[in-house]
């Protein structure tokens, strides 16, 4: 694999995300790569199986844009601001097209990614007992403990074709560091056949090597690196910019109305060529969201 994997978001998506793929854009509230989702919409990808614990606004937009055939998830809402109407229209009215649901709990999804990353054909967990979820999802099964004889729940591995992981900083090889909430990004990336790392900053390898315990992913598992500052808005990047809560709250009104949602996509996704133009269009809001510094102390790796 080449040492320099730095490409534009357009090229990364064109080369690595294909119609019909199983795609994961992870990030639990933190580091959700909206920039990648928008580029996938712009390039008109279709029949995707979208996986995320929390579909969030980005999948609401991708589903409304008609990119998705199937959704694998555990909690589908607009955090703190009601439902995701784009998703609901697809499920309740098959608009713009039907959407199959493959539904787990958070722990179930975490376990599926963990199994995928670890190369295991199943993952045992203590959940789902007494719940109706196994009744509607045949992939939530049970396994008997060879020591105690007790029955545990078991889920199969999730092995995406593509995982897109946004990080604070990476080098051109794809070695990537993250701090703040970690979600399931490491597991999702190790479980995936192809990985796109999107970074707020591209740094020299030496910056990462100065603090190896911070590394989330080694370039070994990464196929493309994209430099996309502000790539998570309205999600956030700890140490770079805050979550745009007003946008999340405001999304309710937009997504409630199919026309308004499509108008939003026309203006903010199809209407801009890339993330830089999106940020420019946001104008002052970008500055308002910029993080106030809270610098951590350094540690010593000497010997």
């Amino acid at each position: 694999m080449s040492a320099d994997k730095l490409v534009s978001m357009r090229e990364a998506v064109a080369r690595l995300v294909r119609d019909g793929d199983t795609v994961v854009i992870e990030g639990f509230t933190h580091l959700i790569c909206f920039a990648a989702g928008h580029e996938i919409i712009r390039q008109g990808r279709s029949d995707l199986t979208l996986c995320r614990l929390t579909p969030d606004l980005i999948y609401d937009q991708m589903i409304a844009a008609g990119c998705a055939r199937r959704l694998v998830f555990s909690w589908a809402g607009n955090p703190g601001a009601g439902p995701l109407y784009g998703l609901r229209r697809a499920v309740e009215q098959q608009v713009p097209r039907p959407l199959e649901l493959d539904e787990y709990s958070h722990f179930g999804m975490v376990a599926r990614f963990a199994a995928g990353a670890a190369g295991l054909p199943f993952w045992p967990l203590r959940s789902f007992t007494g719940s109706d979820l196994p009744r509607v999802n045949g992939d939530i099964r049970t396994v008997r403990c060879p020591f105690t004889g007790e029955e545990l729940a078991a889920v199969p591995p999730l092995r995406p074709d593509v995982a897109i992981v946004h990080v604070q900083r990476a080098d051109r090889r794809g070695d990537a560091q993250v701090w703040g909430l970690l979600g399931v990004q490491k597991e999702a990336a190790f479980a995936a056949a192809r990985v796109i790392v999107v970074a707020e900053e591209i740094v020299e390898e030496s910056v990462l090597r100065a603090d190896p315990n911070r590394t989330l992913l080694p370039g070994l598992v990464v196929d493309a690196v994209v430099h996309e500052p502000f790539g998570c808005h309205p999600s956030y990047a700890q140490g770079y910019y805050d979550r745009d809560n007003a946008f999340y709250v405001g999304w309710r009104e937009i997504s409630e109305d199919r026309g308004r949602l499509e108008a939003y996509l026309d203006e903010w996704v199809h209407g801009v060529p890339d993330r830089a133009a999106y940020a420019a269009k946001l104008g002052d809001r970008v500055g308002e969201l910029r993080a106030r510094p809270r610098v951590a102390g350094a540690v010593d790796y000497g010997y």
Partner: protein
Amino acid sequence: MTAAYTPTELMVCRAARELADGEVVFVGIGLPNLACNLALRRHAPELLLIYESGAVGAVPERVPVSIGDPALVTGSLAVCSMQEVFSHYLQGGRIDVGFLQGAQIDRHGNLNTTVIGPYERPAVRLPGSGGACEIAILAKRVVVVARQTRRSFPERVDFVTSPGFLDGGDARQRLGMPGGGPSLVVTDLGCYGFVDGEMTLVSLHPGVTLERVQAEVGWELRVTPELATTEPPDEDELRVLRELDRDRLYLG
């Protein structure tokens, strides 16, 4: 003389009193988050707040608008992956109290956050489980905060997302569930405990009649013989609570 307060404020203050100092609580967003931070700032300074997003020992400087708010991370004791949160903390048996909400809760404390109507053709598609299913199974005890209407309190939920006492009795033990199940349900009308796995009214909020409560329950409600009146919030609880949610994002 007690202060004026809203039903929501009463719910949050009552839920907060349920948390003992030194306990480990799995915090949900919204009212549960307010209740936990209220307890932390008043009677439970050693309460350990764990958010499913991976923030451990969070001391948010602002009311978190989402469960993954950056304010939960900055200044927290530890950040861990979600794999660790669910495996080491929740499944590892380290969570004393889990907070749950639900679109529906039934006679036996089962919660539904998945669908209203049949699963395949839902009248309303709800968000789904999130971490609720495993919290309901694994937390040592569960506190439920919910607004009460006849529709949201049916005899049996349309879909069991998060098991309470299932069909009642010792169903949980028979299925080997590690956690104790729901111990308290706080609504805008009263408080409920569970007897033989059945929801039982233990206190009425000030000014609420038994008839009103019964009108908002979809089954023949069991009432404890020593029915009490819920202790209303005091001045200090209200002061701290209102500081916590200055913009009344959740208090309304």
